[in-house]
């Protein structure tokens, strides 16, 4: 995948996705630029995961086109394994390989897919383990790690494949609150290093501080998008306002939307 600067890193046009009769994505158009960090927010069931999973073809779009780094992933003739190599993905449930040590989790795909030799793969793995602060855990099995540590290993595993962009699907949603910070810190570091990132998250502070753009989805479509200061502090749409008020002040189910903006801003 050659990344020409005038082409966006991700280009989504007219994306529809149905499961059976239920249409989950109802026409999504979205560009993500190189080095851009886009946070996708929205209520549960609005199609955020499905959107992300269409980008690396874990779900097959019903209609529409998606280009990643100029390569059309929705082309039926494309080699999907080659495309996926360039797209890292981090899951809510970590999905580390439980039968492999941390080090092997990071080297297995490097060796099987990229055909790197063991020494080279382990060197790269250790670089990324060091980056997420878990070098001393290389011999551990995933079950011996905390959730936060597992998620950082999962990020390091993706990075070991040298992806051009990273997709995060609620990476901190299944973590105990005190473990969220370490994972977000790693993601923040990645963003600062210029990684192209699409992040589905409910961490509004992260979105405000790190995102270049926030996309609010509801009911299978993009309702509004823009710089975090605008979308989070001065949302134009009522649906955005009511969502933000629910996220920011969960105990007040129908709190005044305007307050939500002030809280964030």
């Amino acid at each position, binding site marked *: 995948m050659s990344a020409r600067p005038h082409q966006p890193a991700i280009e989504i046009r007219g994306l529809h996705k149905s499961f059976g009769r239920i249409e989950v994505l109802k026409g999504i158009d979205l560009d993500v630029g190189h080095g851009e960090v886009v946070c996708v927010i929205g209520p549960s069931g609005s199609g955020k995961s499905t959107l992300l999973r269409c980008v690396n073809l*874990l779900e097959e779009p019903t209609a529409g086109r998606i280009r990643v780094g100029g390569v059309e992933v929705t082309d039926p003739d494309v080699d999907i394994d080659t495309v996926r190599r360039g797209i890292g*993905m981090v899951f809510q449930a970590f999905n580390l390989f*439980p*039968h*492999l040590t941390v080090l092997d989790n990071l080297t297995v*795909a490097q060796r099987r*897919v*990229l055909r790197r030799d063991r020494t080279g793969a382990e060197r790269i793995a250790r670089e990324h383990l060091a980056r997420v602060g878990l070098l001393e855990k290389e011999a551990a099995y995933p*079950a011996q790690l905390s959730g936060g540590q597992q998620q950082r290993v999962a990020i390091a595993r993706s990075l070991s494949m040298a992806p051009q962009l990273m997709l995060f699907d609620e990476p901190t949603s299944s973590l105990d609150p005190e473990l969220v910070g370490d994972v977000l810190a790693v993601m923040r570091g990645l963003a600062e290093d210029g990684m192209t990132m699409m992040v589905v998250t409910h961490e509004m502070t992260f979105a405000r501080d790190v995102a270049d753009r926030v996309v609010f989805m509801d009911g299978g479509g993009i309702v509004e998008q823009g710089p975090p200061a605008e979308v989070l502090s001065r949302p134009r749409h009522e649906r955005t306002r009511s969502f933000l008020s629910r996220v920011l002040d969960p105990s007040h189910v129908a709190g005044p939307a305007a307050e939500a903006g002030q809280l964030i801003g």
Partner: protein
Amino acid sequence: MKLRRRQRERLILLLQYAVFAAVVAAVLSAADWGRLREAFFRTDIIASMFPRVIVVALRNTVVYTVAAFAFGLILGTVLALMRLSRVAPYRWVATAYIELFRGLPALLVLFLVGYGIPIAFPDREIPGGVIGQVAIGLGLTAAAYMAETIRAGIQAVPKGQMEAARTLGMSYLTAMRTIIIPQAFRIVIPPLTNELILLTKDSSLAYLLGVTAQTIEITKMGRDTLNDMVNATPLLVAGLTYLLITLPLSQVVRRLELRYAKAR
């Protein structure tokens, strides 16, 4: 007399033990020990069976079992993957195979392999002689059972594992081989052990193929010696020899399970 529940339970348990012990004692004392020993425990016959019962019969039983298990495991894994395939004809073929071979007695299949294949292909021979014939003859049936076990094991691996593997650029088959199947096998170790123990005993069917002094296994040796000596002692020896295989096997598996528990 009013008993508390704890006491009552203990009393009932004691009573059960007492009855059980009484029955065992009655049976043991009624048995004719002298004749039993004469029929089942003639030390001279036991001595005469060694060392052949170990170095030949036990060895052959193990070889037959391992060969049939290996063949069944490979075929069973392929069938399991076919059952899970997105290609419908693969699923149909695998399902038909599994239904067919689970319905046939192992003895019949072994017989068909041992005598049918040489008739169907007169110029060809199953490689490995009796070992090859037993491997295929028993493995074909074992594969049908193992396929269902392995399929269940594969399905028990969380979906996210395949997704994570594919996301890292692995092909479906690479992901299956390096990520899914290794985890599935940890899950199915107990039922596969059962299959291995069943095969150990089914290997006694090898006599159907006409085994020689070199290819004899435990049961056949027990029966031959029984006929020669007109005495049942060889059966006792044969039974104990099987336990030499199956008891350590259970131990090994328990260890394996403990070791894998860490990596789960």
